[in-house]
């Protein structure tokens, strides 16, 4: 199976460890992973801030880069939801504006082939035990776009529960937004920070060492709040936990 890794611009630039973990994990599971060098960004920040027309060329580029692959895997629920949920909507809007079917047709091939990482593992590869080892107490935050946009449901928790040595503890108010929301974190900083602080306090109450999620953007916000509040907890992307083994444990 020829699978393309869509790492996302944020991960590529700020969280290369997550990318390396996805490669390591998928390779271990027998998947042939490619990283198309032409990839950049799905256009979500533009689209969600109200710049749909600036997002369109990025979406077209995404399709050009990825359309030939059998599957496109991304370690980001929100970028995955952008492609799956919002690319079709961009096509519809272009049509409603009298611009014909060109955009919809260009974007259509990548939409059904794009998977968030945990979805790909459980639904496509059919595995929940990926042979990982991670001897820590972990709490899981289901990010909004993964939870409600893609409907990831219990998949990430099932994967975590199968990790050897890992103790999974329930996060109070797990389904509440952490307050990141892309440009929301800057435009409505006070509310965003208050939401982040509540999320971190809830995480702290679990006694876990690690807060895990499937989206580094949310983890950047939560982790930044944790560091500022000096909680001693650390944010870790689920891919890094799943990539960790007894032979090569995550540091």
């Amino acid at each position, binding site marked *: 199976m020829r699978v393309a890794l869509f790492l996302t611009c944020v991960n590529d630039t700020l969280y290369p460890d997550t990318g*390396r973990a996805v490669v390591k994990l998928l390779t271990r599971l027998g998947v042939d992973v490619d990283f198309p060098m032409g990839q950049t960004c799905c256009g979500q920040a533009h689209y969600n801030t109200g710049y749909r027309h600036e997002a369109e060329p990025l979406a077209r580029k995404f399709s050009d880069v990825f359309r030939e692959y059998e599957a496109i895997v991304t370690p980001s629920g929100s970028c995955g939801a952008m492609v799956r949920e919002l690319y079709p909507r961009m096509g519809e809007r272009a049509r*409603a504006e009298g611009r014909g079917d060109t955009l919809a047709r260009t974007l259509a091939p990548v939409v059904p082939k794009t998977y968030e990482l945990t979805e790909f593992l459980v639904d496509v590869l059919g595995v929940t035990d990926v042979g990982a080892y991670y001897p820590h107490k972990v709490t899981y935050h289901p990010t909004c776009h993964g939870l409600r946009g893609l409907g990831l449901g219990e998949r990430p928790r099932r994967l975590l529960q199968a990790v050897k040595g890992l103790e999974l503890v329930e996060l109070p108010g797990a389904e509440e937004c952490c307050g*990141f929301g892309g440009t929301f974190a800057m435009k409505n900083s006070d509310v965003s*920070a208050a939401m982040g602080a509540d999320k971190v306090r809830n995480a702290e109450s679990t006694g876990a060492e690690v807060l895990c999620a499937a989206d580094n953007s949310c983890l950047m*916000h939560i982790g930044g709040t944790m560091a*500022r509040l000096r909680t001693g907890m650390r944010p870790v992307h689920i891919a890094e936990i799943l*990539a960790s083994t007894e032979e090569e444990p995550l*540091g």
Partner: protein
Amino acid sequence: MSGTFVGMPAFPKAAHEAVHNTTLRGNLRHATHTIRGKRAKAVTEVSDWAELREAGKRIKDHTLRHLDRYLVQLEESVTAAGGTVHWAADADEANRIVTYLVKATGESEVVKVKSMATQEIGLNEALEAEGIHAYETDLAELIVQLGKDRPSHILVPAIHRNRGEIRDIFAREMSEWGRPAPEGLTDTPAELAEAARLHLREKFLRAKVGVSGANFMVAETGTLVVVESEGNGRMCLTLPETLISVVGIEKIVPTWQDLEVFLQTLPRSSTAERMNPYTSTWTGTTDEDGPSTFHLVLIDNGRTDTLADEVGRQALRCIRCSACLNVCPVYERAGGHAYGSVYPGPIGAILSPQLRGTASEIDASLPYASSLCGACYEVCPVAIDIPEVLVHLRERVAQGGPATEKGNKVVLKPAKGHAAERAAMRAARWALSHPGALRTGQRLASRTRRLHPRTLPGPGKAWSASRDLPAVPAEPFRDWWQRTNGGRTNGGKQEGTK
């Protein structure tokens, strides 16, 4: 505090105050979390909730698509039943009509059923200016009115007040408006309710004119419906001689059968009750029973402009249950007043900028008052995709574009204050369209990483005020991939782990 919202600051400024008010945040957190849990339970009791939600959506969409036809049918039915229909294009016209109708009765006071439509048009203030006293009879509205405050929630307008605050308001203000609060009033719910009951009873029995809104209007029979919990509404709808109902044109449903859906979804979504305690219906006038004169004032006030927008029109499906407010993490922290409208929370953030336009500072800021977490869409009993409309309205604010204002098609210019953002978005789009440029930027960031400041200037300042920045790694992923051929060669294994 005045009853008008004109001149409110933009949402982030208003929210700044609210976020730092610990009493307010405590009150809101307690109230929204309680109702949130109850609603979820009430909804899971219904096995066909998803079908009910879809049915509600369809009925509303169908009605909106044929609104012209159903409104004419409604007018005919109301007239045939002995009522009089008045049409108001905007708030001023509606207020003029109601004021005229009250004056024609020779009365100088009215009792009111809780109504969002009359709040929206500022009816109480308009009547006051003409020397007519309007008394709110819903308990929460009474608290807001006595406290010279503004409502901060659609269903629970005094949600931002706790029991102690309510006791103080009653003890201080009731005597100014009528029967004073009993001596030694405490803050127990039963005593507070009894104080309100005694105070209000005097008003019900004296009033000759009642003013209401309606949750629904049934086109086939000209029947209006009010769904309530306290019974005060039924008093106002039956005791006065004249009844004036002010209703938004989108409140119509074609038939009685359609009510079946909403009488299940509305109470469960709003108060988490299987059925609300009082459902009152009234059709025109009947001899020797209820009001002898009935007026229906149908208000547009931006609704047909909203209807003209194919993405935004779904906001008109709203049945004002307020489930979206109760589940919204932004509403919970910012409070209802920050939204600068009688419609707070997620629905307010999409309704107000459509009904009023996006020209004012507060209206231009509302589409951004959301993290797009999607919880509001998930709970909405008529499936309004609020995040979709928020993004659509952000586009209108940031980039301008086609819209309808007072029935005319216009092309809006981008709102002020977005020029720098627009330029940044354009530059980012350019860089992200050119992988080479992205790579150059990444490498520059990596090489200069020891020089990066701990706090950011400009718009980034808001980030670093409360959160630490992530450290930029020594090497972006794409450089590692190329150097090690995806971890297959030279150093790949070691690099594969931290």
